[in-house]
């Protein structure tokens, strides 16, 4: 099991719009936007709701639970900074609030399947703390 803190990998360039998401992750919480006009979850962050275009988005803590809709075990990463971690898993997580996010899936037993129930976990990675997921 690699210590993700030792990786030198590209992170986000945090803006005013995206700051609540990344700062919450650093504090161990998963927070996403919610549209109070059409009552839908929104991920990634936008200035207006991409479903109904209302100027009615607010940040709400998510349950941190989701379903794995696909995954890949990466042997040749797109960025060389991830080479020390190969093979590792990335996956698509459909959050219980609706939207799907891509994340890193921690699975030391290497037994993940499409349909698995996942839970969010903040993991120090390089110089940041990122929202990863693992099996319940």
């Amino acid at each position: 099991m690699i210590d993700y803190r030792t990786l030198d990998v590209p992170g986000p360039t945090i803006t005013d719009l995206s700051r609540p998401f990344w700062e919450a992750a650093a504090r161990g919480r998963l927070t996403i936007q919610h549209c109070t006009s059409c009552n839908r979850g929104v991920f990634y962050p936008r200035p207006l709701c991409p479903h109904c275009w209302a100027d009615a988005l607010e940040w709400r803590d998510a349950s941190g639970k989701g379903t794995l809709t696909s995954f890949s075990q990466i042997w040749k990463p797109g960025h060389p900074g991830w080479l020390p971690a190969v093979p590792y898993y990335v996956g698509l997580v459909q959050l219980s609030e609706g939207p799907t996010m891509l994340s890193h899936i921690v699975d030391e037993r290497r037994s993940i399947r499409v349909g698995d129930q996942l839970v969010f976990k903040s993991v120090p990675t390089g110089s940041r703390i990122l929202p990863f997921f693992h099996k319940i």
Partner: protein
Amino acid sequence: MRHMSPRAALAGIGELKPERNTHGVTTMELLMRVSAEAIADAGVAPQEIDGLLVGPQVGETPQHVPATVAEYFGMQPSMSNMVDLGGASGPGMIWRAAAAIAAGQCETVLCVIGNHRNMPPPRSPNRNPAREFDTPFGASGANTSYALLMQAHMAAYGCRAEDYAAIAAGSRSNAQNNDKAIFHGKPASVEEVLASPLVASPLHLFEIVMPVAGADAVIVTTAEKAARLRHPPVFLNGAGEKITHRAVSQAPSLTSGPLKPSISRALAQAGMRIQDIDFLSLYDCYTIMVAATIEDAGLCAPGKFAEWLKDNGGMSCEARQPINTHGGQLGFGQPDLAGGMTHVVEAVRQIRGTAPNRQIKNCRSALVTGNGATMSEAVVLVLGADL
């Protein structure tokens, strides 16, 4: 020269107040706010926008700009493009919008252009959503995206690794008839495809196009003028386009893509059924792309591409509906963005009847598919020997 058909009208406008410094706001945020103004001014619903023309966004989104904007806006246009004509880009969008409407590809086009001005400029200017919300988790590059699409397809339908590998083997086999192909002289069996290294499971190395240098070009003119030129003309009888998203995480479906409505529109314009098509020139960046396209074209039920291919007699010029006779990009090599044009060029050769070593008997029509980003940008052409 003919006169322009006077059908398009400018129905809504938006404009943001200029600022010397946008203090970290992204271009995408500015574009969404100004578009909301124009949409409200026109009195249309955002869902009525089915055409999207955007300007270049130097730094922030280097590639796939229209798809990135469409995804951010929650839109799925059936015509989209980036107009890169410097200061002439804005007016350049307007007549292109009118031309797309006249061509029957869309009805209501949003033309939007703008840029942030962050002083001092950020150290890493690339801040589009795929870079910001996928790359940090160890997912970057097309291999990961198509691996995720393939895994979802396998999980949904129970297709086996050898089903997809047969597409790579068939492409390599076709490449043996094309001495231009990068894999000419290098066939690969299904077993050899499966023995090639895993790059991103379930994708093996031989299921992924090899990047090469190259270029393709095509001359388009009027049917009248083409009739006076050297070759029998190849006519464009139908077209379809659809953009659904940019990042694989935002895909409305992982097993079916925007090629499905694009193929339907192109065939309807041409007045043809998919079974009438003599040659399938299908975009093949990965094996899964061909599998999904066969299914999205309605040639078989979802998950049944392997059985259909077997019934079809494989992919060669002798097959019932031959596929990618030049070897496809899997056999020919992918000359970067020209890869998609190789499928047009081969279709012209086949319809002209001049495909060396691999001519399909009496080839009168072809379906050409183009695909971009994460099975998210689709263009389809129906080409024919007859108008």
